[in-house]
């Protein structure tokens, strides 16, 4: 098992929205990567953007600036 640590997690309602998020993060140098959505957020499938907690502000600014279609932003232990 991996060592659990806090993450800033962004969820989406479509795969297309996740792709836009990844594209914007890579372009702006915001850290993180796409991972399966953890069950503590929602049961089911799909992917979410997981970033270090220190990037939360940058993530929120990016979402606003790019009008990204996100479902929610969470701070959780993964």
């Amino acid at each position, binding site marked *: 098992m991996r060592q659990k640590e806090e993450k800033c997690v962004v969820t*989406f*309602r*479509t*795969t*297309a*929205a*996740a*792709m*836009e998020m*990844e*594209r914007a993060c890579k372009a702006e140098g915001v850290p993180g990567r*796409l*991972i*399966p959505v953890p069950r503590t957020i929602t*049961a*089911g*499938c*799909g*992917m979410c953007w997981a970033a270090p907690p220190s990037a939360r502000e940058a993530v929120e600014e990016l979402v606003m600036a790019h009008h990204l*279609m996100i479902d929610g932003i969470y701070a959780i232990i993964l």
Partner: protein
Amino acid sequence: MIYLDNAATTRPKPPGVAEAVTAAMMSWGNCGRGAHEEALASARAVFSVREQMARLLGCPRADHACFTPNSTQALNIAIGGLLGPGDHVISTDLEHNSVLRPLYRMRQKGAAVDFVPADRQGQIDYGDFERLLRPDTKAVVCTHASNLTGDMIDIGRVGDFCRAHGLLFILDASQTAGVFPIHMETQHIDVVCFTGHKSLLGPQGTGGLCVREGVDIRPFAVGGTGVQSYLETQPMEYPTRLEAGTLNSHGLAGLGAALDFLEKTGIDAIRAHETALARRFYEEVRQIPGVTVYGDHSKAERAPVVTLNIGDYESGEVADELAERFGIATRPGAHCAPRMHRALGTTEQGAVRFSWSYFNTEEETDAAAEAVRILATEN
């Protein structure tokens, strides 16, 4: 073989299309199903194709470019998902069965449908849109170009009409996307339905619809989406809203490569080449005694299609002779355009359609004209 049936499907595809399909088959996972690198590679590429389609059609939002197997399914989704009993729809005699049959089915369910008539030359009077307008008119559904004659509908004019009267505008761009400019925003188009394998030069089994933001199409199919799995209904967010089931991401890889080719070559250059060949052919065959060419060829802007008959020679026999004796592939018969054939008076004889793509040459075109001359002389 001289292939002049590009209005049915373009052949060959540009360099890179088949290679992109093969590479995708050998490496990609399922787009939107999982977050491992193989699935992400597919999802990223498919999203890039959405961006390319949105850019090509003047659709402001890439996530409103939804994929289907073809234009027919896209039109079924748009017509079935936006119209219903009690609605009135205006369409035209130029339409393909991919528009007509969904409209006829909608009429059986209680919608009213009127068609702007085409005259004996296949031309429409734009004043008829106004004359057919009713208080309950909800939409105009029309093609950008007749697949039978190549005659085009002025979609800017139809878009203005729709905007002035608060109507939805659903466009069938099967014959024109990738060759003629289309801009959803400036031309006030609500839905553009396209197919990947014709003028877009991509693989069969690809197509879709670009939807204007705020236009809510009821999902046609519901099912697996890779997201919101415990929801009992189809997610309402585009593009997932219209994309139940695994996408043809392998085919879309090919479509992406075809769109790369279109962007690099430029649709103006493609259009200039194709229409010049069609014009060259027309100028030859129109002078041949006994040959009847359909449509209005006085207009510069027309799809690269020339449709003709030789005397009263059955179109299927002409096409068969062209194929067997001259190695020229054309399309005879009805072309899934029954209303247009009725307008032209060709329901019995059918007609022989020659259609060009970017990969045809002047030599092929001249050989086809010469073959028509020989057959007309013999007839």
